[in-house]
């Protein structure tokens, strides 16, 4: 049975931690005082020693990121902390829970991070759809400001307006600067030239919410939670065909079986498990025989996928994998920012070919072409969205090839309209101006 462990969400079941008085009652903001009494280097060293890996998707060590940010006196200009609260990976809804239940812990993490890099400016970029969460966070920020907790740090909560790509850090920075949210070529990376061309630390909400605990406990104690290579807890977001979907904070390394069956209560309606998407819709799919994989960064990667944002989507045997791939790809087509060609054009090709396969009008050449388009898009775009658009489709083809082939040469969908995702509409269907031309064989 998965071991219950609360770190980021600790105390939120017992108290209303959205109130500063309640948060203070459990020791809140005392850690910030402690950190402010430490040198910048000492704070960074503690976070580095805790081996805290980013919880936003890429798993980059936060300590290393911190040490790359030039201090303002060396940069000769103000530097910035940006919290990435643009959570929009399909399957992921953890930052929302953190912001609405422990907003002060998250803000405390932002302020400790600001101290660590000597910054006086914190920006929180929250996705525009999260209105209820914005309200909670804003109220918490006002309380913190009134209580004098911010000190001489300015805190701005910036609302997005509906664009998946703004979760990508450089697109987020462009968006925050008042432009279309399109990724920047790198280098330079944000720690060198980020917001307003100044050194910038950019981290995910959950990553920052871990910081107070690390400073409070010390790296040695903190590292005892979860596996050695990536200590700490993670808030797993469980969704899809599972009895008890929801957010569950557990030690990193909880197995997929424990998550789906013990925590999630298994597959409803007596159906069979067909596929597991272990890290949000962009990552390669797992088949049921991979269910004993521990859900931590290294184990999932060794098994051929990514933990991503720890968003686990459970798929039962009623879903047609071609339809599922098509729905995923329509998302990436819609969200491709259009800046670079492989992603902008590749996603359209993939959608068109998947539609042709689903309709039964495709042959083996089309399936091979689709597989080929995947290989030609991967690794060739400015940001990871191009890869994200490839990984679901290519992994569905490779792992469920029989099902794709069963659609070909006039056969059509073997589910005959009975798939759980049959005919699902996507926003892109509402305004797709490009004609669906014949794809050359």
């Amino acid at each position, binding site marked *: 049975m998965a071991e219950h462990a609360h770190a980021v969400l600790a105390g939120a079941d017992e108290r209303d931690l959205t109130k500063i008085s309640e948060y203070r009652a459990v020791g809140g903001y005392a850690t910030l005082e402690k950190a402010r009494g430490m040198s910048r280097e000492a704070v960074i060293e503690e976070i580095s020693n805790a081996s805290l890996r980013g919880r936003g998707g890429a798993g980059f060590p936060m300590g290393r990121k911190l040490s790359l940010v030039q201090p303002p006196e060396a940069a000769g200009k103000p530097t910035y902390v940006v919290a990435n609260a643009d959570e929009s990976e399909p399957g992921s809804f953890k930052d*929302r829970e953190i912001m609405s239940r422990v907003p002060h812990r998250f803000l405390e993490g932002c302020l400790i991070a600001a101290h660590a890099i000597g910054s006086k400016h914190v920006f929180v970029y929250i996705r525009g759809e999260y209105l209820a969460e914005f309200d909670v966070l804003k109220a918490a920020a006002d309380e913190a400001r009134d209580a004098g907790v911010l000190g001489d740090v300015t805190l701005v909560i910036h609302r997005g307006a509906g664009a998946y790509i703004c979760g990508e850090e450089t697109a987020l920075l462009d968006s925050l600067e008042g432009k279309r949210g399109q990724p920047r070529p790198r280098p330079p990376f944000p720690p060198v030239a980020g917001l307003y061309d100044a050194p910038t630390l950019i981290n995910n909400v959950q990553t920052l919410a871990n910081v107070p605990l690390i400073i409070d406990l010390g790296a040695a104690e903190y590292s005892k939670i979860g596996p050695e290579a990536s200590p700490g807890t993670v808030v797993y977001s469980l969704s899809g065909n599972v009895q008890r979907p929801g957010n569950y904070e557990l030690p990193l390394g909880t197995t997929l079986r424990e998550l789906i069956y013990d925590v999630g209560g298994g597959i409803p309606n007596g159906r069979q498990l067909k596929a597991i998407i272990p890290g949000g819709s962009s990552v390669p799919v797992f088949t049921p025989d991979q269910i004993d994989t521990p859900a931590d960064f290294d184990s999932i990667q060794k098994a051929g996928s990514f933990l991503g944002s720890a968003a686990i989507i459970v798929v039962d045997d009623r879903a047609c994998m071609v339809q599922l791939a098509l729905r995923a790809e329509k998302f990436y087509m819609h969200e491709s920012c259009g800046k670079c060609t492989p992603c902008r054009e590749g996603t359209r090709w993939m959608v068109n070919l998947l539609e042709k396969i689903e309709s039964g009008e495709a042959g083996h050449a089309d399936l091979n072409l689709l597989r080929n388009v995947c290989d030609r898009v991967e690794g060739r775009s400015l940001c990871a969205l191009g890869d994200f658009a490839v990984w679901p489709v290519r992994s569905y083809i490779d792992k469920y090839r029989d099902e794709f082939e069963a659609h070909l040469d006039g056969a059509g969908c073997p589910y005959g309209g009975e798939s*759980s995702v049959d005919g699902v509409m996507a926003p892109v269907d509402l305004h797709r101006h490009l004609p669906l031309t014949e794809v050359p064989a």
Partner: protein
Amino acid sequence: MSQLQDEIRAAAEPYPDKKSAVMSGLRMAQHQYGGWLPPEALVEVAEALDLTPAHVQSVASFYDMYNLAPVGEHVVEVCTNISCALVGAQQVVDAFSEELGIEPGETSEDGKVTLRTIECAGGCGYAPVVVLDHRYREPTRPEDVRGIVEELRNG
């Protein structure tokens, strides 16, 4: 300067560069203009922040939450991304479609309700997610739809 422009300038104050307030400005303008951004709204935002209308339009057209065409008094959005799709989002779309007598992407003839599908709203564990005038209703089942539409029509 109009009152809206004063408010937009005030929203720009916390930023080192006022251009950063273009998103807030568009949101405020959209609210003022009845839920969408006609060309004159874009000009108003541009003037307030010393930007060109073309730049403001380039931003407005990039993000899903800015409406460049009129919408109904109420907007019903159904998430149909994977997690919602797996637990019956399309049936919810169909139920709204039938109850309102319109297709996704359309507005009812009386101008009351716009229906559309959206990408992942981040409510995957409480699926299917419906967003009613920016507030989440999680989960929403097809059998809930009649009551929701009735409320919107009376509201």
